């Protein structure tokens, strides 16, 4: 993972800020146990981090005090591999970017780990396995693998497995290609462990993990006349427990829950979740800011979390007429929509995540800020993922945007927000309060440390 180089301030600040385009992280995902963390970047590479197993690590639930038991399970690089290469569509004379759009881990079934990674067109299944033993003592081959001269073999030996340095091998096991005409934006592994879905702008396909030469189209919203196209699919996900249910979001701000038992082609939704538009606040940008950029089922499967440009919403699966909770992520941008439209920032797609107990939701914003909302109290907090202001293992302090009233020290004015520093991709550990935040080409990992001095949890940071 590339890191921006530190240079002396002043004359060389432009060098310091220079980021190789290929190193920009485009997706982050924990596996099902949280021991592995995968990131994908614009250059088509995947980097997998593994959490250190710490001797004397206290079981989860107890206080984890820094310094007493040593490292509290840091994440270190486990494996790096090139997942996708740049490609070229000869028929259309267009490039196919190698940028990894999404990574999803499969539930672990044996010693090996499997993950799906996708770019705009092709999904690949990768097997990540360890090898720490090597057979030695072959009769017909020598140590380097060359064939021995038969005359030198005088006795038979049984090859034995000897421990070697740990090697992590990554191999592509399946390549699911030619399934999509448009750009793949989501993949989601089904709870049945056998299938997964992939969604592009107009269609959703279901694949079997073992079959690469065909997929089943389950949603198709492409109009017969492309002139009539007004809505696209922006995200899709399978229900965490019910293998027949999935949801997809659209650029018009609606969510559709589909039941695959109802019909083979799920063009007709089972449930449509839509919030009626407030006629008073209608503007030319209403539709654009209502476009859903990410949708996630809660871990318990009862709620949906969606992110549109200005808000994050929680929906109850049993109530279609509107969200049950709405959180303002950066409402101060509402008056700046025209400029944000001009510089294309209004089309940024932010992700959103649940914590393990579904009590907290988190999403990103600009200026390296990200927001966490406690669903019980309804309160939100702004945090910053920026190495200049946080040292490793320092406690994160909350930030504030100044929007009027009394200005406190440390408040950031709306006009001084850096819109190039966007937190689009993030992940929350499935069981613990550990979060991974991608900020351009840097990955920040924050862990929850319950300090004996303060009341509530505070976050310590590790920067990778």
């Amino acid at each position, binding site marked *: 993972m590339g890191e921006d180089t530190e240079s002396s301030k002043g004359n060389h600040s432009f060098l310091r800020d220079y980021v190789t*385009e290929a190193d920009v992280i485009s997706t982050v995902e924990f596996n099902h146990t949280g021991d592995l963390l995968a990131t994908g970047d614009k250059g088509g590479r995947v980097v997998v981090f593994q959490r250190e197993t710490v001797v004397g690590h206290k079981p989860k639930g107890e206080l984890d005090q820094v310094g007493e038991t040593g490292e509290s399970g840091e994440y270190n690089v486990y494996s790096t591999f090139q997942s996708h290469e*740049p490609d*070229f569509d*000869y*028929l*259309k*004379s*267009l*490039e*196919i*970017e190698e940028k990894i759009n999404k990574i999803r881990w499969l539930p672990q079934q044996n010693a090996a780990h499997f993950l799906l990674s996708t770019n*705009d067109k092709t999904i690949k299944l990768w097997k990540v396995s360890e090898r720490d033993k090597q057979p030695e003592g072959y009769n017909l081959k020598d140590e380097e693998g060359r064939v021995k001269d038969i005359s030198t073999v005088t006795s038979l030996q049984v090859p034995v497995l000897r421990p070697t340095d740990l090697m992590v091998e990554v191999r592509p096991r399946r390549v699911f290609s030619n399934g999509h*005409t*448009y*750009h793949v934006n989501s993949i989601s592994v089904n709870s049945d462990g056998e299938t997964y879905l992939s969604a592009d*702008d*107009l269609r959703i396909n279901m694949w079997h993990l073992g079959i690469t030469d065909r997929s089943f189209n389950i949603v198709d919203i*492409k109009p017969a*006349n*492309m*002139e009539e*196209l*007004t*809505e*696209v699919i*922006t995200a899709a996900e399978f229900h965490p427990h019910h293998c027949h249910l999935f949801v997809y979001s659209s*650029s018009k701000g609606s969510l559709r829950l589909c039941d695959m038992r109802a019909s083979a082609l799920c063009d007709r939704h089972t449930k449509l979740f839509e919030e009626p538009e407030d006629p008073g606040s209608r503007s*030319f*940008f209403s*539709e*654009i800011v209502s*476009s859903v950029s990410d949708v996630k089922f809660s871990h318990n499967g009862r709620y949906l979390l969606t992110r549109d440009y200005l808000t994050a919403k929680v929906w109850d699966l049993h109530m279609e007429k509107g969200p049950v909770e709405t959180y303002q992520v950066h409402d101060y941008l509402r008056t700046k929509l*025209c*400029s944000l*439209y*001009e510089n*294309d920032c209004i*089309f940024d797609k932010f992700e959103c995540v649940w914590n393990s107990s579904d009590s907290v939701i988190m999403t990103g914003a600009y200026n390296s800020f990200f927001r966490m909302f406690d669903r019980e109290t309804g309160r939100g907090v702004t945090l910053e993922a920026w190495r200049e202001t946080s040292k490793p293992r320092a406690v994160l302090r909350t930030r504030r945007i100044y929007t009027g009233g009394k200005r406190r020290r440390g408040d950031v004015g709306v006009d001084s927000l850096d819109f190039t520093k966007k937190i689009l991709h993030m992940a929350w550990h499935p069981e613990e309060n550990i979060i991974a935040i991608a900020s351009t080409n840097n990955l920040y990992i924050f862990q929850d440390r319950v300090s004996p001095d303060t009341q509530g949890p505070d976050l310590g940071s590790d920067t990778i």
Partner: protein
Amino acid sequence: MFPKGTKRKFSDSREEPVAGGEDVNQSSLAAVRMLSSYSLQRQSLLDMSLIKLQLCHMLVEPNLCRSVLIANTVRQIQEEMTQDGTWQIMTQALSAANAAAQCSADRLVATEVLCRQTEAAQGEQVPKPFPVVGSEGCPAEEVLEEEEAAAAEVGMTMSTVSPQAPTSYLPGTFGMDPCWEEEETGEDDDDDEEEDSEECGSGSEGEERERDSLVEDTRTAEQVFGTFEIKNPAPSPDPALEELFSDVDASYYDLDTVLTGMQSVPKMGPYDLLESLSSHGPSPLSSSTSCRSDLNELDHIMEIIVGS
């Protein structure tokens, strides 16, 4: 964000002779200013949206979601403008100006309106929207001139390379499915025209050929979402264009891309491409050569390029 004309407009309305009671006129002036400010905002938003729809990275398919959202915004503005009559006023004004145009006034006007830029903005707006290339061969060549002008101004690129195989790039960059049926052209319905003439190019006024090329209204939305089929471009009726692009063939661009492994490289200008090819002195190809045919010539060019 607003074109420079805003302030002038404000002071212009102030300078208007005030007849009768000043108070009454003040409040009505204020209302007028608010309305004109709103319609200026709306107009600038429309212009911005049209530019966004046209400016697309030619190497990679543009984001369909973004294109759809922008197109919906344009539609919304057009509907509103039709409702408050602004659309009619503009179309009438322009139809009067385009009396000599070859094609039907309604369609011309509609496309012209869409392509219209405010006087003030025209000079300063850097990326001129270039006309979307027709997917059927015929008007493609007429579009070339416009694109050339636009490209010359901005150093814009891919699009001007494409004209030889007009269907190759611009429509294709939206990367959608083909099967475009041409809409019937007889309708005078403004709404229809809005729908159809969602985007087009042309910054300059008063050029007949440009007008012709802009009557792609039936294809404008198509170009936004339409696919991309490699078709044979019809021979160009314009000798100047013919000459300029005679030795540029889109297939070469493909080759260049493939050979040089260009990835997210900023677009090459038409002159860049011409330079790179002219140095090897390729034999001029007629514009009617399709990408697929004439592999011998492709081989010949490849040899030249690879051999150098």
